[in-house]
């Protein structure tokens, strides 16, 4: 079965289907990580997106059991790769990537020139795209005309609506650290959080109460010591309720930590502004500099929006910056316990270098 990916500018990429034989649409983004496709595919931040992996061999180590995933299901709308490996080899592998995608109803293409596609996205900026699986006469690109008008109505744009309800927990969940009940409790506002954020907090002896995206911590009927705003998909400005709730949390001087979307929400709650990056940062090799210590670390990233540092008041300082393009990678309040990073200290996928930030946050509780 063949398939095609059509970008909103009309460019078409053809490939072979190896996932579910359904159509999909979404924002087309690329990730440059060389490992970690099970983690990425289950990362809720990819909700509404068609993911292009730049590493050309995917499927090598199959798919592990659910406890290793970052959420309960595959979150991407579709997957685009160069070469698919259907003969995985790994002691943790339970099935092939293709079987998994089919079971979860996610379409996927291989045999696509992912490098050409990535360059396209880099030069043009991310685009919406449509993934169609059919065995029709998809032999030549030139046959497709007026794609733009054809697809404009049916294409899904995850930045055009508030997508948090699709990825957030519906009810409050409580997690105990491995060594029994923790002394401190953190409220995690789940905007589509990765499992490893919860694991990272629990590992540090903290009890976690995961709440829905629109939960107001000030209205909680339980005690807690800090608030955490998780990563998640979409345009942060769409998460109006979350921004309003975080604003209230900050007003109470409650220790607050944000990651990725959480950082953007913190910025918006503090009266700052966010903007969309041309093609975002998605990979495991993003260098950031801690401006307090002048130490640089390598981080895992997955974001399309960024904090506009200039928009924040003088009470905030720039904590981290990206060494490649100078964009903001973290903010910190000058005297209050508010901090946020744009990258992913919880890794999975990616390096653990920033894991110490969880320790810093826990100390503030």
């Amino acid at each position, binding site marked *: 079965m063949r398939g095609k990916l059509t970008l909103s500018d009309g460019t078409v990429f053809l490939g072979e289907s190896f996932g579910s034989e359904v159509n999909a649409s979404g924002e087309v983004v690329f990730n440059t990580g060389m490992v970690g496709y099970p983690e990425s595919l289950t990362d809720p931040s990819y909700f509404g997106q068609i993911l292009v992996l730049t590493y050309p061999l995917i499927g090598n180590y199959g798919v592990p059991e659910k406890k290793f995933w970052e959420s309960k299901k595959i979150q991407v709308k579709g997957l685009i790769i160069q070469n698919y490996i259907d003969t995985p*080899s790994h002691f943790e592998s339970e099935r092939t990537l293709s079987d998994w995608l089919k079971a979860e109803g996610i379409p996927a293409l291989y045999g696509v020139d992912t490098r050409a596609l990535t360059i396209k996205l880099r030069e043009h900026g991310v685009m919406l795209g449509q993934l169609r699986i059919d065995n029709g006469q998809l032999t030549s690109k030139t046959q497709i005309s007026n794609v733009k008008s054809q697809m404009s109505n049916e294409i899904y744009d995850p930045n055009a609506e508030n997508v948090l309800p699709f990825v957030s927990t519906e009810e409050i969940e409580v997690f105990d650290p491995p060594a029994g009940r923790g002394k401190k409790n953190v409220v995690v506002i789940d905007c589509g959080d990765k499992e490893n954020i919860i694991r990272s907090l629990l590992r540090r002896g903290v009890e976690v109460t995961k709440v829905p995206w629109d939960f107001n911590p000030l209205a909680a009927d339980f005690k807690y010591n800090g608030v955490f705003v998780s990563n998640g998909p979409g345009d942060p400005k769409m998460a109006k309720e979350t921004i309003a709730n975080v604003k209230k949390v900050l007003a109470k001087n409650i220790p607050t930590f944000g990651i990725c979307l959480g950082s953007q929400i913190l910025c918006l709650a503090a009266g700052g502004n966010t903007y969309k990056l041309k*093609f975002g940062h998605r990979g495991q090799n993003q260098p950031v500099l801690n401006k307090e210590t002048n130490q640089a670390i390598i981080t895992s990233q997955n974001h399309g929006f960024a904090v506009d540092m200039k928009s924040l008041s003088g009470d905030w300082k720039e904590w981290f910056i990206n060494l490649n393009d100078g964009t903001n990678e973290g903010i910190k309040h000058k005297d209050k316990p508010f901090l946020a990073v744009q990258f992913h200290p919880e890794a999975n996928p990616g390096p653990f270098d920033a894991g110490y930030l969880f320790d810093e946050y826990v100390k503030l509780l």
Partner: protein
Amino acid sequence: MNKIRADALKKVLVLGSGALKIGEAGEFDYSGSQALKALKEEGIKTVLVNPNIATIQTSKELADKIYFLPVNPYFVEQVIKKEKPDGIFLSFGGQTALNCGLALDKLRVFKKYGIKVLGTPVKSIEITEDRELFAKELNKIGVKVPKGSFATTVDAALKIGENLGYPLLLRSGFSLGGLGSGVVNSKEELIKVASNALHNAPQIAIEEYLKHWKEIEYEVVRDQVGNKITVCNMENLDPLGVHTGESIVVAPSQTLNNYQYHMLRRLALQVIEHLGIVGECNIQYALNPENNDYRVIEVNARLSRSSALASKATGYPLAYVAAKIGLGHNLPDLKNTVTLSTSAFFEPALDYIVIKIPRWDLQKFVGAKQQIGSEMKSVGEVMAIGRSFPEVLQKAIRMLETNQDGLLSNGIDDTKLLPTTQRIFVIAQRFAKGENVEDIYEATGIDPWFLYQIKEVVEFENQLPNQKLTQDVVLRAKKLGFSDKILAEAFKTQEDEIRKFRKKWGITPKVKHIDTLAAEYPAKTNYLYLTYHGEESEEIRDSSIVNSLTKNEQRKAIVLGSGPYRIGSSVEFDWCCVTCAQTLREKGLETIIINCNPETVSTDYDITDKLYFEQLTFERVSDIYDIESSKGQQDVSLVLGFGGQTPNNLALRAYKAGYKILGTSPVDIDRAEDRHKFSDLLDKLKIDQAPWQSLKTVDEALSFAKKIGYPVLIRPSYVLSGSAMNVAYSSADLKKNLKTAKAISSEYPVVLSKFVEGAKEIEVDGVSQKGELLIYAISEHVENAGVHSGDATMVLPPQRLYLETVRKIKSATRKIIKELNISGPFNIQFLAKENKIMVIELNLRASRSFPFVSKVTGKNFVDLATKVMLGEEISGIFKTLDLDYVAVKAPQFSFNRIKGADPRLRVEMSSTGEVACFGDDLAEAYLKALMSTGFKLPKKGIFLSIGGKKNKLDMLINAKKLAGLGFKIYATEHTHEFLKESGIKNTRVYKISEKKQPSVLNILTSGKVDLAINISEGGSPEGETAGYIIRRNCIDLGIALVTNLQSAELLVSAMTSKKLEDLEIKSWDEYVS
């Protein structure tokens, strides 16, 4: 910690790695060159000690002062005394430089002269070099190392063995390339291996044997304030137990998941932080395939073969960045040299896969086994880049230049699944016979991931003959890495036809960039590869340099590199290619290099306007030629004359395909390369040659040999792997030779020629301009003919040639180049005996000795040749014969690496590298050169075993000199008698077969002998076993060995006339201005 600031340094000493040897090869020319470049950018004066004259780093442009002297504590201290540098780099010259640095530190030389060791502190290096200390340090931070312990005696080793149980792994400390390491299966084996290893090293490690564990490496960079990154990880296809230099390696790792990749990455950062590495290092792991258990095997606190590979695999200039860090820069302040916009503090994201396959030349060694293990035996490597494993695997196989085009039909009939140099082909054969992945995994420990992919390729190839030639089949074949040649064979057509078919249907490889960031940011460089996994070729940026220089014309030149380093072709050709490329760029041509060897400087992406890291096959060169000439009216030429024989072999085919080739016409190249045509040409010019004939049967061979008289030189067809040149002294000898090698048939004729005994060998390297001699250099071999020219010691200018001989050689040379209308480089080898000369062969390309003659005469032969090839008219007289100094080029052997190999010099080349040194006379230059290859001047006793009456007579005067110098002399039976009769006091030793004391072995192991001279008589099979035992033991025991009479004579006379202190410490520019 006291921080270093670059502006505090004025002069820095860089130590090179000396000659290329197994375990230490061209990668250190790359790393040293990068270090020198980094220093130059800072405006720091540089002093380089490196006797390897064939390297790029020993070129004028890179270092301010170059000393062609041994990299050992004595000479380096002398250089320090003279130059007074304020800093030193130890980590760019391999284990040689590192060991020398550690010794100098121990002697407190750095302290004495106030020299700062730049980069990783000596203390940290010492920890990484001492296995016991290393294990202790890692235990401190809870990082696992293999279970085991250390022994300084065999008894202690046995005790450890008892505790751990067999099988075990034995390793020795302070070793390059894992010398003296191996898997030990029993107590008996342990006794044997341990006693052997303890001869070479004071201490050995005995460890748990982690059977079938994966071997993974990370390249790590850390700056002095603790910013750190891992630049690349690599996975060995071969499991633990096969040395990483012998393994097929892929980058990035293929079978590790996110957790494993980042667990090992985190450990790497933790370990180097603890060790306090400043600069670059490499960390090797074993990883259990059944769970996530790991061990840290070792850390190399220096640039290594792996770091060169990682640099080329990722585009991250590891050596350059390491040097900058050593000078006090921090990673976040440095820029990514590919994008020129992003930070050097990042980890490259690859959007391709890279494979490295080692190149072996074991057939060049008599008595070597094909099995591979924990010791390194390979002499070079290739790297292939692509977007699927099958694609890179098959590309790399062709890059090896071993006449293997794919996985099957390579004439491999061995089906034992041992780790051998041919294992990958054996596995393919087994798959072709229907074996399954599980069984092969059990037998080999190669991860099923790789095996499945190999199986896919084999199955496709097996099915090919049943398929029809369709677009789909061809495209799929190309994506799996098949060559047009294999497709042509399968479809019973010609390679050309497949090419035409492909082009007709648009099935062509696409150009992709290596940009370090997987297309996230645009690359400003043109580091390119070709793949069939792509729809579009990327836009190739024009070089700014070209645009500024060539306003009116668009001329391009594609220089073909030399491919993998191997015996007979190594760094000297890289120097030639790089030098040629520099001249071409100076002349305003857009310059392109194609090469596939990660150990080279020519594959640095800033050497040329474009680098294609690609195969040197005709198919791929044509693909690139097509791509480069496709844009408009561009004038594209190929340059084939500087990469050795590999590109030269393409000349006629490229010419017939209509490609433009710079320099001598390929038709004339063919007249020189084709033995018959060349022979006719010499006859026509009335220049003598040894009688020869090409023969198809043993009977023909015997009758021809009888006619010309023995000894005869036998040259089998080159297409047969395992065939080697040999000399036969009798008909029995000849029969045996042709039979054992199965080397003669109508398809593969053998060339027999008269072997002239007692003749001198002379080489002329030169550049000819439209058939006129422009410049030449005459070098004389120390050894008489019979030693391969690559193994010979060369003297320039010649010291012992008759003027008449020189005149005749010049005259013959002029006639030949005129006849062939040569425009470009050439090399002619002559025999001279009693003022008569004969031509051995002519090469219409730059030869192995071009860097030597260029650097010794101070005239750049490659630069001149390139200009001539471009059509520039050059005039002038170049003085190359009457020089005020002497230079000697000496071969470097690696026999200690090849277990069981007979180290006697023969007609087949076996040296792996070379050095050259200058002196005010022959004796001085020779001693320096010899010491540069690791030779130590003897202090105690000398062992003599001289076969044959004439040899004995010739050696008599030398033996007298040796006795006169106060050496104690030991000799075997006949030599003993002969010396005694001549009044030279000596002690008789007994051959093993005589079963008497003191035996040869007693004396050699006693430590009383530090030089052995063993001259065997040509063609005498008797006593050969005895001779072999002497020679092999010398190698295994590290005793200096001389097996050639002329070398022995020169050595003795040099030792008589010069002492160590007499050897001048003079830089290159003090000899050659």
